[in-house]
C-alpha cells in the first residue's frame, strides 16, 4: 500500500476534498480497498464488543423493578384474550376441529362400524374400499343409492336455483318500479323465509296429494288442488307425490320426474324471499342519477333493465347463485317434508345429505364418512368453478 492510499483511507470520512485527484481507474481500486478494510474493521469491532464490559444502561424511570413472578403475571395478563376465546375454542375443538380429522381418518377404515361405548368399533383394515362401495351402491344394507342421490341433488339444484333467481329478479324489478304499498308486498314476499321446511313441505304435499283407498286417481276422494286446476286444461290427474308416482328409468337410475316438479316448485317458493330481499335492497341502493340520465336519453324500460340495473346488481346475482347452489347441495328437510321420512319410494328422491343421515342411522359409519367426504369434494369443485365464473362476471361493468 502506498503512502497516498493510506492517507486517503485514514482521512476519507473527515476530509471534504481529497488532497490529490486520481484518475477514475485508480480511484475505483482505492475505494474498493477502503471498503474491504472497513468491512474487516467492522467485524473485528463487533467481536470485540461482545467481550467488552458494558457500562450499565441508563433508562428513563420505568416504575419499580419487577420481580420474576410479577413479570410472569403481567405477561400472562397481556395474553388474557385467550381466556375470552377459550369457551369457543374448547367447543370448536370438540365439535369442529376433531370431527374434521375424524372424518378424514374414518373414511379410510374399510366397512367401519363405530361402537356406542368407548370402544374402537370394527373395521377391515385401511383402504379406499368405502369410496368404491359407496359409488357402486354395493353397501349390502339396502340403504339409499349414492349415484341416485347425487343425480337428484344436482338436477334439483341446477333447475330450481336459476329459476328462482330469475323469478326473484322479475319480482324485484316490478317491486322497484312501483311507488305505493311497496312495504306490504315486500313483507308478504319475505314470509316464506321464516317457515320450517318440514312443515311447509307437508303443506305443499297436500296440494299435490291424491287421497284414495287404492292410491290411484280413479275412485279417489280428492285428486288434490293442482290436479283439479290441471283438469281445467284437460290434463289427466298425475300422481305427484304418492308411491305410484310416474318415473322414467335410465339404466339403474330412476328419474321420478313428477316428484322433481313438486320439489322444484317448493324450492323456488322457499328460495324466493332471500333472493328478493337481496336483489331489491341492491336495486334500491343504485344511484338514481343513472336512471335520470337514461330517461333524458329516452331509453326504454328494457334497455334500462339490461343496461343499467342488471350490470349494477351483477355481484348480488352471482352471490345468490353461489349461495343458492351451496344450499341446494345440502337440501334435505324439504324432501322429508314433501315425501316422508323414506324420501319418496325407497329413497328415489334421496339427496346427498339424506344419504349421509341414512347411513348414520343404519350404523354404517365408514360409508357415512366416505359419503360426507365425497359431498365435501363435490362442493369444493362447485365452489371453485363458481369462483372462476363469478370473477369474470363481477368485474364486468
Amino acid at each position: 500500500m502506498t503512502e497516498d492510499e493510506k492517507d486517503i483511507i485514514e482521512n476519507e470520512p473527515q476530509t471534504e476534498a481529497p488532497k490529490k485527484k486520481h484518475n477514475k481507474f485508480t480511484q475505483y481500486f482505492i475505494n474498493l480497498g477502503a471498503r474491504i478494510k472497513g468491512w474487516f474493521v467492522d467485524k473485528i469491532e463487533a467481536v470485540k464488543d461482545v467481550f467488552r464490559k458494558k457500562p450499565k444502561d441508563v433508562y428513563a424511570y420505568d416504575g419499580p423493578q419487577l420481580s420474576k413472578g410479577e413479570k410472569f403475571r403481567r405477561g400472562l395478563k397481556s395474553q388474557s384474550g385467550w381466556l375470552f376465546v377459550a369457551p369457543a375454542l374448547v367447543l370448536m375443538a370438540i365439535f369442529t376441529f376433531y370431527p374434521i380429522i375424524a372424518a378424514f381418518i374414518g373414511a379410510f377404515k374399510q366397512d367401519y362400524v363405530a361402537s356406542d361405548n368407548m370402544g374402537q368399533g370394527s373395521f377391515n383394515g385401511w383402504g379406499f374400499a368405502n369410496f368404491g362401495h359407496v359409488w357402486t351402491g354395493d353397501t349390502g344394507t339396502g340403504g339409499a343409492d349414492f349415484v341416485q342421490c347425487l343425480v337428484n341433488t344436482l338436477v334439483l339444484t341446477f333447475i330450481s336455483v336459476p329459476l328462482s333467481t330469475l323469478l326473484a329478479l322479475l319480482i324485484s324489478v316490478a317491486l322497484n318500479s312501483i311507488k305505493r304499498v311497496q312495504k306490504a308486498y315486500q313483507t308478504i314476499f319475505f314470509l316464506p323465509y321464516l317457515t320450517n321446511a318440514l312443515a311447509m313441505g307437508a303443506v305443499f304435499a297436500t296440494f299435490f296429494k291424491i287421497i284414495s283407498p287404492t292410491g290411484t286417481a280413479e275412485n279417489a276422494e280428492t285428486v288434490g288442488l293442482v290436479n283439479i286446476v290441471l283438469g281445467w286444461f284437460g290434463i289427466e290427474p298425475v300422481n305427484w307425490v304418492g308411491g305410484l308416482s310416474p318415473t322414467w328409468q335410465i339404466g339403474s337410475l330412476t328419474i321420478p320426474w313428477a316428484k322433481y316438479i313438486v320439489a322444484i316448485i317448493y324450492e323456488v317458493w322457499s328460495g324466493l324471499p332471500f333472493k328478493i330481499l337481496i336483489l331489491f335492497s341492491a336495486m334500491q341502493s343504485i344511484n338514481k342519477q343513472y336512471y335520470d340520465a337514461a330517461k333524458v336519453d329516452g331509453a326504454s324500460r328494457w334497455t334500462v333493465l339490461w343496461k343499467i340495473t342488471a350490470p349494477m346488481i351483477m355481484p348480488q346475482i352471482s352471490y345468490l347463485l353461489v349461495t343458492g347452489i351451496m344450499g341446494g347441495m345440502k337440501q334435505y328437510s324439504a324432501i322429508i317434508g314433501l315425501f316422508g321420512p323414506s324420501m319418496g319410494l325407497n329413497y328415489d328422491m334421496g339427496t346427498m345429505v339424506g344419504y349421509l343421515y341414512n347411513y348414520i342411522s343404519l350404523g354404517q359409519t365408514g360409508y357415512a364418512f366416505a359419503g360426507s367426504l365425497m359431498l365435501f369434494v363435490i362442493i369444493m369443485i362447485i365452489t371453485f368453478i363458481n369462483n372462476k365464473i363469478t370473477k369474470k362476471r363481477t368485474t364486468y361493468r
Partner: protein
Amino acid sequence: MARNRNSVSADTVVGKWDLSAGDEGFDAEKVQKREKTKQIVKNVLVYIFLTICALLAFLPFYWMIISSIKTEDEFRQTVPTFFPHSFQWKNYWMIFHQVTTTTGSAASFGQILINTLVVGFLSTFLGLVVIVITAYALARMKFKGKNLLFAIMLATMMIPGELFTVSNYITVAKLNMMDTYTVLILPFLVSVYYIYLLRNNFMQIPDSLYQAAKIDGLSDMGYLLKVMIPLTAPTLISITLLKFIGTWNSYIWPRLVNTEPWQMITNWVSGGFVDRRQPTSPWGDNWTIYSGQYGSSEPLDTLKMAAVCMVSLPLLILFLFCRKYIMRGVSKSGTKG
C-alpha cells in the same frame, strides 16, 4: 361496437323524431296523454303481476290455516272449499294430546314444546355469550396468535356442516350424552359467521372510546358490557332472533341423537297424526273426533295442518313484531341460524 358511431346515431335520431311527429305533425298534448296512458297501463300490469305472485306466495299459509280448522270430510271433498263450511277447533285439541310413539317412548306436545323452548332459550343465551366474548377478544384485545386463530375459525366455514355431523354423532354416543338437552345445545353454540359479523361491528367502534374508558378505570369486561354491547345492540338483536329461529327449526340433529321425549317441535310435526290417542298414552282412553270413521293408523291431513300451524305461526308472529331486525339480520348474514 366496431361500427362507425356517426352513421348509427344519425339513423336512430331520425327514427326517433319520426315517431313523435306522427301524420298531422307534432302535438305535445297528445304525445303527453299517450305517454301517460302507456304509463298507467304498464303500472297496472306490474301491480297485477306482483299481486299474482304475492297470492301464490301466500297461498300455502292460507291453505295451511283453513285446512287446520276443516273437518277431514270437507278436506277430502272432490272439489276443495276455499273457506271452511264449519270450523272444527277440535283438531287443535286433538294434536295437543297427540302422543308420538315411533320408537316406543311417548312424548306429548307439551313435553315437546317445553323441550323446544328450554333448548331454544338456553342455546340462544349461551350462544350469544360465547359469540360476544369471542368477538370482543378478536376485535379489541391483543394476544399472541390472534390472527392465526381467527383465520382458522374462518376456514372452517368452508367445510359443509354435514361433515361434522357424522363424527359428532359418534362423539355424543361415546360420551353417553344422548337424550339430554346438553347434546342439543353444545354443538351449535359457536357459530363462526356471527362471531365474524360481530367482530366487524366491534371493530367499527373507535379506539379512542376504549382508551377513554381505560383512563376512567374501566376493565375490559366493563368496557364490553357498558360500551360495546349497547353500541352494537341492533346486530345483537338480529343475531338473537336468527339463532332462536334456527334452534326452533332444527330437525336433523335432534332426530339423530335423541329419542322422542327429548326431541324438538319439528320432529314432532314430521310424524303422522291419527284420530285417536294411542293406548300407550298417559291418558289411556280412546278419545276420538270421528268415532272410528277413519282407521286408527290412517294419517289425517287436517290434524297434520293443525300441527304445522302450531310450528309455523309462532315464527310468523315473531316476524310481525321484529320485522326490521330479522330482515336486516338476514340480509347481512344470509343464514337461518
